[in-house]
C-alpha cells in the first residue's frame, strides 16, 4: 500500500486563499484517484505561504482489471449490426463468443479493461487538478500559458512504500516533478530531497517551516498569550487575524512592542483597527486600566538580534500610522466642537448614496422623518430619534472614517459625545447599523432601534422603488442583510409594527427627495395600454394619466405631480427643472413585493428556529401579516397546537370538511355560504356541532382580538370531538336536498371558523 506525497511549491499564496485551496486540493485529487479505480485509507492537505501539500495514505498500488460482459446481436443478424457491435467493443469477430439465449444464438463479448499502476493514475489526476484548479484569481507568468495563483516553481510528487520512494513521472509545462523541495526562504533556502510524508514534515521543521497552519496559529496564540501574561496583560482575541497571520509566515516568531505614550489616549477602536488592518498586529490590553497598551507582531524568522531590528522597524511604522490617526482624530474633534456634528453632517450633501436615490444628505433627511414616525412605536422620544438620525451618518465625512471605513458608527458615537449629545443619541450613531449579520447583536435602546429601523426600511424601499432588488446570488447593496436586520429588530424587541405603512412613509419621503431635486419621473412601460370604453387604446393625455394615478408619470417641468400609490392622492408639489429622468418600478407592486421579500426572509429565519414553512404560510395568509411579531406568535401557537393530538385530529377533520365542501361547490357551481340552520339539524351529533361552533366562535373572536392565540387554538381544539362525531354519524350527501345543503353550509361554517385562526388549507399532511 503506497503513500502519495504531493507538494506544489510556488511564490507567496495569498493568506485568505490557503484554507480553501487545501480543501480543494484534497477533494479534487482524492476524487480523481477514486474515480480512476484506486482506494485510499486517509488524506490530509496543508498550506504555507509558499506551498500546498497533500499526503494520501494507504493508496492501492493500481486499479483493478475490469471485466465487462456485453450482449450483442443474434448470430443470424445482418452483417451491419455485427460490425457496429465490433466497433463499439473494439474487438474482432474471433474474440466474440456465440451463446444460446432465449432469442436463439447470440454473440457475446467480454471486454477487459486492464488495471493501471497507481503512478500513472496519479500523474494524470495531478496534472488535471493543477490545470483546472479553482483559484479565486489566477495568473500567467513569464512566457508560459499555465495558470496558478502565483508562479509555480516546482512539484514534488512521490509514491513511497516499504521498498522506498519513487518519483511520479509528470511534467507540466516544463515543470518536471521530483522529490525535492526547499525550506524557509531566508533561513534554509537550499533544496533537499524527501522519501515520505513523515520525512518531509520532519525535514521542513528542521529547515524552519511548520507545515500545518493550525499548528502555526496555535504556536502564535500561545506565545503571544504567554508574552502578554508575563507582564500582567492580555491579548485581544481575534480569530480572523490569527488565521490570516498564520497564512503569512512559515516560521512564526512572536514579538511584543510598545505603543508610543502619545497615542494611548486615542479611542481603543482606532488603535485596534489601525494595528489590525494596516499592520496585522494583535492588540495587547491592560485589563486593570481597560486600555490597549502594546502590540504583538508576528515575524517570519529568527534573527541574530532576537528580532530587535524587526521590532524597532514595526514600531516606527506604527508610530507613523498612529501619528496620522491622531492628526485625523484631533481635526475631527475640532470640527465637531466648533460646528457640532450637524455641521460635519453638511458635508454629506456632496456624497452620493446612489445616483437614483440622491446624496447621503437626502438619505439622512428621509431617515430622520421616518425615525420620528417610528419612535413612538418603539418607546423612543420622537425628537431624540430625529436628532440621532440627523447626525448618525455625519462621521462618514470625518477624516478618520475616510481613512478607516470600518470605524463608521464607532467614530460617530465618539464625535456625538464630544459635540455634547446625550440621552442615547451617541449610542444610536453607533448602533443604527446593527445588526450587521445573523451573528451580530440587536440593539435594544429605543432611540437606536428607531434609527436602525428607519435606516434599513429607507434602504429597502429605495432600492425596491428603483427596481434594483437582489437577484440570485447578486445582492450588491446587502438588501437581504437589511431585511434580516428589520426582522431581528422587530422580533428581538417584541415590537408590534405595521411595516406596510412604514414602507409607505419611506416611499413618500423618497418622492420628497425627487421633488427637492426637481427630478422628472418617467412612466414605465408595463405592456398595459389605457383603454377607452370601446376597448380601444386612447391617446394618453396628461389628465388621463393623472386620473389613473397608480404610478408616477413623466410630467412637463412646472406641472403638479400627484401620486396615489397608497390609496390616497397626495399633492407633492411642482416638478422642477431636473436633468435626470429615469424609470421606476411599477409602484403598485413595490409594497407587496417588499413585504413578500420580508416574509421570505422571515421564513428562512424561522426555519432556522425550527418552525415549518407550511405553518408560516398558513399564518402569513392571515390579515395583519405585516406585523411580524404577530406572525411569529401565531406561527408558534399554531406549530405547538399541531403537535398535540387535538391539533392533528382537528386538522384532519378540517381537511375532510374542506374537501367535501370544495368538491360539492365545484360540482354544484354554488357557494354554500348562507349559514346553516340549526333547526334543520337531524342527528344529535349535528346539533352538538352547532352548539360547539357557537361556543368556539364566541371564544375565537375575542381571543384573536386580544392576540391570545393559545386561547383561540384551544377554542378551535374544542371542535375536534364534535367534528369527529359528526362525520362518524352523519352522511353529508343525503338524498334530502334541504338537509344536504344545510350540512354543506355547516361545513362552510367549520371552515370559516377555523380560517379565522389560520389558513389551515396550507398545512401539508
Amino acid at each position, binding site marked *: 500500500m503506497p503513500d502519495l506525497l504531493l507538494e506544489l511549491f510556488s*511564490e*507567496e499564496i*495569498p*493568506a*485568505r486563499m490557503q484554507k480553501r485551496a487545501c480543501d480543494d486540493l484534497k477533494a479534487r485529487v482524492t476524487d480523481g484517484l477514486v474515480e480512476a479505480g484506486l482506494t485510499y485509507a486517509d488524506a490530509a492537505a496543508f498550506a504555507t*505561504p509558499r506551498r500546498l501539500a497533500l499526503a494520501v495514505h494507504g493508496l492501492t498500488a493500481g486499479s483493478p482489471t475490469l471485466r465487462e460482459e456485453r450482449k450483442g446481436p443474434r448470430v443470424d443478424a445482418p452483417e451491419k449490426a455485427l460490425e457496429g457491435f465490433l466497433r463499439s467493443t473494439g474487438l474482432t469477430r474471433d474474440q466474440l463468443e456465440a451463446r444460446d439465449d432465449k432469442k436463439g444464438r447470440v454473440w457475446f463479448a467480454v471486454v477487459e479493461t486492464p488495471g493501471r499502476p497507481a503512478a500513472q493514475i496519479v500523474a494524470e489526476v495531478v496534472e488535471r487538478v493543477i490545470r483546472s484548479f479553482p483559484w479565486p*484569481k489566477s*495568473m*500567467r*507568468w*513569464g*512566457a*508560459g500559458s499555465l495558470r496558478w*495563483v*502565483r*508562479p509555480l*516553481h516546482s512539484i514534488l510528487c512521490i509514491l513511497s512504500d516499504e521498498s522506498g520512494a519513487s518519483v511520479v513521472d509528470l511534467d507540466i509545462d516544463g515543470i518536471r516533478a521530483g522529490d525535492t523541495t526547499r525550506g524557509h526562504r*531566508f533561513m534554509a533556502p537550499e533544496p533537499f530531497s524527501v522519501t515520505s510524508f513523515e520525512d518531509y514534515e520532519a525535514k521542513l521543521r528542521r529547515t524552519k517551516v511548520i507545515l500545518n497552519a493550525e499548528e502555526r496559529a496555535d504556536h502564535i496564540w500561545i506565545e503571544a498569550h504567554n508574552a502578554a501574561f508575563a507582564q500582567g496583560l492580555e491579548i485581544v482575541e481575534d480569530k480572523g487575524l490569527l488565521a490570516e497571520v498564520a497564512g*503569512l*509566515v512559515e516560521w512564526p516568531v512572536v514579538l511584543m512592542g510598545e505603543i508610543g505614550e502619545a497615542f494611548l489616549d486615542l479611542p481603543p477602536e482606532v488603535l485596534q483597527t489601525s494595528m489590525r488592518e494596516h*499592520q*496585522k*498586529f494583535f492588540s495587547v490590553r491592560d485589563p486593570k486600566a481597560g486600555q490597549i497598551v502594546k502590540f504583538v*507582531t508576528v*515575524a*517570519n*524568522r529568527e*534573527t*541574530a*538580534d532576537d528580532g530587535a*531590528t*524587526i521590532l*524597532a*522597524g*514595526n514600531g*516606527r*511604522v*506604527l508610530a*507613523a500610522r498612529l*501619528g496620522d490617526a491622531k492628526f485625523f482624530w484631533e481635526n475631527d474633534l475640532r470640527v465637531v466642537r466648533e460646528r457640532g456634528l450637524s455641521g460635519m453632517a453638511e458635508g454629506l450633501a*456632496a*456624497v*452620493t448614496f446612489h*445616483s437614483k436615490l440622491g446624496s447621503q444628505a437626502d438619505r439622512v433627511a428621509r431617515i430622520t422623518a421616518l425615525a420620528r414616525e417610528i419612535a413612538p412605536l418603539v418607546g423612543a422620544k420622537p425628537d431624540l430619534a430625529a436628532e440621532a438620525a440627523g447626525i448618525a451618518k455625519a462621521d462618514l465625512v470625518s477624516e478618520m472614517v475616510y481613512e478607516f471605513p470600518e470605524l463608521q458608527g464607532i467614530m460617530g458615537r465618539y464625535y456625538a459625545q464630544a459635540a455634547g449629545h446625550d440621552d442615547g443619541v451617541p449610542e444610536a450613531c453607533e448602533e443604527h447599523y446593527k445588526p450587521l449579520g445573523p451573528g451580530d447583536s440587536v440593539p435594544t435602546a429605543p432611540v437606536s432601534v428607531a434609527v436602525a429601523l428607519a435606516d434599513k426600511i429607507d434602504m429597502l424601499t429605495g432600492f425596491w422603488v428603483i427596481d434594483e432588488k437582489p437577484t440570485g446570488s447578486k445582492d450588491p447593496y446587502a438588501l437581504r442583510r437589511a431585511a434580516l436586520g428589520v426582522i431581528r429588530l422587530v422580533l428581538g424587541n417584541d415590537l408590534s409594527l405595521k411595516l406596510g405603512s412604514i414602507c409607505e412613509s419611506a416611499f413618500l419621503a423618497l418622492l420628497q427627495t425627487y421633488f427637492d431635486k426637481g427630478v422628472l419621473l418617467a412612466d414605465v412601460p408595463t405592456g398595459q395600454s389605457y383603454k377607452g370604453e370601446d376597448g380601444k387604446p386612447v391617446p394618453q393625455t396628461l389628465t388621463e394619466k393623472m386620473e389613473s394615478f397608480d404610478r408616477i408619470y413623466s410630467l412637463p417641468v412646472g406641472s403638479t405631480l400627484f401620486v396615489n400609490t397608497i390609496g390616497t392622492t397626495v399633492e407633492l408639489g411642482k416638478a422642477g427643472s431636473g436633468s435626470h429622468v429615469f424609470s421606476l418600478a411599477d409602484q403598485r407592486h413595490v409594497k407587496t413585493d417588499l413585504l413578500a421579500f420580508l416574509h421570505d426572509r422571515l421564513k428562512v429565519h424561522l426555519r432556522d428556529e425550527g418552525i415549518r414553512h407550511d405553518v408560516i404560510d398558513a399564518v402569513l395568509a392571515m390579515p395583519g401579516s405585516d406585523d411580524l411579531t404577530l406572525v411569529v406568535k401565531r406561527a408558534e401557537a399554531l406549530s405547538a397546537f399541531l403537535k398535540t393530538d387535538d391539533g392533528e385530529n382537528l386538522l384532519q377533520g378540517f381537511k375532510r370538511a374542506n374537501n367535501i365542501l370544495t368538491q360539492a361547490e365545484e360540482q354544484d357551481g354554488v357557494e354554500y355560504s348562507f349559514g346553516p340552520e340549526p333547526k334543520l339539524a337531524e342527528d344529535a351529533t349535528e346539533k352538538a356541532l352547532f352548539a360547539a361552533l357557537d361556543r368556539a366562535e364566541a371564544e375565537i373572536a375575542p381571543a384573536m382580538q386580544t392576540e391570545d392565540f393559545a386561547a383561540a387554538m384551544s377554542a378551535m381544539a374544542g371542535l375536534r370531538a364534535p367534528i369527529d362525531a359528526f362525520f362518524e354519524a352523519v352522511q353529508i350527501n343525503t338524498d334530502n336536498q334541504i338537509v344536504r345543503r344545510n350540512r354543506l353550509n355547516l361545513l362552510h361554517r367549520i371552515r370559516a371558523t377555523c380560517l379565522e385562526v389560520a389558513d389551515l388549507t396550507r398545512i401539508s399532511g
Partner: protein
Amino acid sequence: MGQTHRDRPRSFQEVILRLQAYWGAQGCAVLQPYDMEVGAGTFHPATTLRSLGSKPWAAAYVQPSRRPTDGRYGENPNRLQHYYQYQVLIKPSPPDLQDLYLGSLEAIGIDMGLHDIRFVEDDWESPTLGAWGLGWEVWCDGMEVSQFTYFQQVGGHDCHPVSGELTYGLERLAMYVLGIDHVMEMPFNAPEARIPLRYGDVFRQTEEEYSRWNFDVADTEVLLRHFEEAEAECARILDVPADDPKTGRRIVMAHPAYDQCIKASHIFNLLDARGVISVTERQAYIGRVRALAKLCADAFVQTEAGGAPS
C-alpha cells in the same frame, strides 16, 4: 553589525544610485524619467506600452510622479504631491524575479539576516490604464517598501508574455534605510558634502507652492479645456492613416498619441484635487482616459516595437 553599517547608504541619492547600478548590472536598460507629468512610474511608455506585444524588454528608471491630492504644503512627514518612484519592468518575467528583487534590497543596505521581508497579497489595478495584474506589496518589518506585480492585462490587451513590474516608493524606502522620520530631514546628497543638502532644501518650497496651486489656484476652466483638447488630439492622431505620404513609410504614431493620454490623465488628477469632479463624474472621466489608453495600446501593438511583423 560593523559590516552592515559600512554598507548602508547615507543619502537619498545614494539609494537611487545603488538601485541604478544594481539593475544595470542585472541587464536592465537604465532609462531616464519620462519628460511629462505622470501619476506613477507605470505611465512611462517604457512600462505601459512596452509591456504589450511579444518583444522581450528590460528597463529600469526613476520616475518623478505627481499626485496633486497628496500635497500637504511640505508639512506632513510622509506625504508629498511630487515624489519619486523607481520602476523596473522585465518581459518575460524571469523565474528568479523575487530573488533579483531581494538582491536589490541588499544592494541598498537592507540586511536579510536582520529584517523580516514578506510578500503580502496586493492585486494591482489601474482603471485609467485598463490594466491589472497580480502580485504583492512587499513588507520590510511591517512597512510597505515596494509593489511587485505580474501584469496580466494592459490597455485592455492580455499580456503575452507576462511582464514582471517592480515599483519602489523611493522617499519612503530611503527614509527607512536611512532611519529618518520626516522626509524633509532626509539627506539628499552626502552629509559630509561641501554643501550638504537635505530633501527639504530641495523640495519644501516646491511642495508648498504646488499644494497651493493644486488645491486653490489652478484654473479649472483652462484645465477642463486642456482635458478635452488632449482627448481630441489623441483620437485625431490615431485617426491619421498610417501611410506617411512624405516618407512613403508606414508610421503609426502610438507614442505621440499616448503623450496626450498621459496629459489627459494628469489633468484629471489636477481637476480632482481642485474638487470640481463629483463622484459620478469621476467614473466617467476615468472611463474617458481608459478609452484613450486602449486606443494607444491598440495602436502600439501594430508597431514594430509592439511586436507587429515589420
